[in-house]
């Protein structure tokens, strides 16, 4: 197991290096003059030169590349163009708030989606199953901001059940805060319901057809004993993998949701940075979410290896 973890960790570092390089290329190689990109075509050349001097973007590309890669591995993403302070501490609070929102979305969606997937698999090709499959397909194909809009109109404005903004009043306790986050979290949960339910369904159907499930049934175990002791452990492997992938996407989709619900998380920070052409903040955001994705998939790989020793042994060989 130790060798497996070590191997996966080393591969993650390679992936991180490549990811940081792609982001570096977008931010530094695509624009031939970073200062000009930020200030626009009508700014005088002197101010462009001064900005390039201040940002260090007039230095050779290779030097900037080495610095930026070293920065990524030491979690130093440079200074914000606007405030001239290090990016990461400025981002930390908003990342925390977004994590709260994303976490609530996952807490809502994972149990419901897994139960729906199991339920559909047990009733394969019956109307309930077709219904769940269709619902999953529909819910995961609609962008979060569209679901968010529809939810605001129906639940917030027409029925007035929940607040239409995600920002609770000052000094609100945890439960009130969650109440404010419920509608945006629901908008995100609906998108991820489809992916998780479909994967759970597919995984369960495959296991239900296996010989060992038939053996378990034939030796007289009840349905719930078979499901819990034999089916779930293997059936949920693809589910774990898809949840990990979704955690990365969750932070991508959160930008639009935060805009709809006026929430001051990472998404609004990124959107503000985009309006201000604050490239260091944007690149830091992209890389941090990339790291979140990589940590989530790494964790999923470890959980899967623990769930199924065959995968672990294959990987070690």
């Amino acid at each position, binding site marked *: 197991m130790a060798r497996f973890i070590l191997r996966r960790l080393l*591969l993650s570092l*390679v*992936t*991180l290096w*490549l*990811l940081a*390089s*792609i*982001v570096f290329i*977008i*931010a530094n190689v*695509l*624009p031939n003059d970073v200062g000009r*990109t930020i200030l626009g075509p009508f700014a005088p050349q002197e101010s462009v030169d001064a900005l390039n001097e201040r940002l260090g973007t007039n230095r050779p590309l290779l030097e900037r590349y080495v610095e930026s890669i070293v920065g990524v591995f030491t979690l130093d993403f440079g200074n914000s163009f606007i405030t001239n302070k290090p990016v990461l501490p400025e981002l930390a609070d908003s990342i925390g708030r977004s994590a709260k929102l994303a976490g609530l979305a996952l807490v809502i969606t994972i149990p419901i989606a897994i139960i729906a997937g199991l339920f559909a698999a047990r009733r394969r090709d019956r109307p309930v199953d077709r219904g769940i499959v*269709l619902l999953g*397909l*529909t819910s995961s*194909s*609609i*962008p*979060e*901001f*569209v679901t968010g*809009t*529809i939810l*605001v*109109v129906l639940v*917030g*404005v*027409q029925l007035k059940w929940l607040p*239409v*903004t995600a920002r609770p009043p000052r000094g609100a306790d945890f439960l009130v805060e969650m109440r404010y986050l419920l509608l945006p979290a629901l908008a995100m949960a609906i998108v991820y319901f489809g992916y998780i339910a479909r994967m759970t369904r597919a995984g369960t159907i495959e296991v239900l057809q296996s010989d060992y499930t038939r053996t378990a049934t034939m030796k007289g175990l009840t349905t719930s004993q078979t499901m819990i002791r034999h089916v779930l452990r293997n059936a949920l492997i693809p589910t774990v993998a898809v949840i990990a992938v979704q955690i*990365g*996407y969750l*932070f*991508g*989709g959160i*930008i*639009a949701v935060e*805009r*709809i619900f006026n929430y001051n998380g990472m998404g609004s920070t*990124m*959107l503000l940075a*985009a*309006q201000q*052409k604050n*490239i260091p903040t*944007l*690149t830091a*955001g*992209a890389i941090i*979410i*990339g790291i979140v*994705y*990589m940590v989530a*998939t790494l964790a999923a790989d470890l959980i899967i290896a623990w769930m199924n020793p065959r995968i672990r042994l294959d990987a070690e060989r």
Partner: protein
Amino acid sequence: MDVPIAPAPAAAPVAVGGVSERAQARRETIRQLLKRPAFLIGIVVLLGWVLTAILGERITPYDPFNDFALNHQPPGQVPVPNTDRIEFHPFGTDRLGRDVLSRVMVGSRDVLVVAPLAAILGVTAGTLLGLIMGYYRGIVDDVLSRLVEAFLALPVILVALLTLVVLGPSPLVVVAVVGILFTPIVARTVRSAVLSERQLDYVTSAKLRGESGLFILSREIFPNVLGPIVVELTVRFGYAIFTVATLSFLGVGIQPPSPDWGLSIAEEYSYMIAGVWWSTLFPALAIASTVIAINLIADSLQSVLSE
């Protein structure tokens, strides 16, 4: 030359023999598709949006760009000020008094050009990469697989946002960014399809005949992995609409004065809290209907082609 005898792969029902049988198999696939209500609903909805986009102002009840009656009128009858005329706006009017129904009808124009182009770019590049990775394996595959991993870890919306900030928002940049971000996902799918094909007898026999790698890839393996590629193209089309609409909503996709749905929501959503729901809800439902339609088509294609 002879087409080698291939064990009919599950993904693409291409039969033994010549072109006529291939055409027959294609006809059978289409016949199977037309029997599925989900596919038919998807096609009807999608073609409906294509039709309104093409006909545009010729069939909209009002001018989608400037018909300034009264701003933010709820759906229904609106008396025009200083006249005794009464206009009927079934979806209400937006903040500039433009008819929401007319704008929704032509709102698919830009996204239905940009999204398919992005999907085609991503699937073409991804197919090429996937074919090479799956067939040649070795060091090329190892290096490209690492790169694919890194691309998959990138948050699509945020990287697109960054690129559009750097290069300036333009439809061409949107196509390029979304297409390139989709490429690795397609490459991975095609690669795994090629991996299971390359060990089949027909590939071995082509190799023994001394065919070149390029020939085997393009004339032997490619037709047999076409099924998953077609499915991937429809799935990516759906995701491209998803992504382009989100980018337009964030202000870096399709630009004003386009009546684009995502853009309309961006311009109107802040009025929702005040009770103006019609100017955001109808564009939102339009996006939802389009992506659902495309996913119904993709899902039907997938189940028919894998039967």
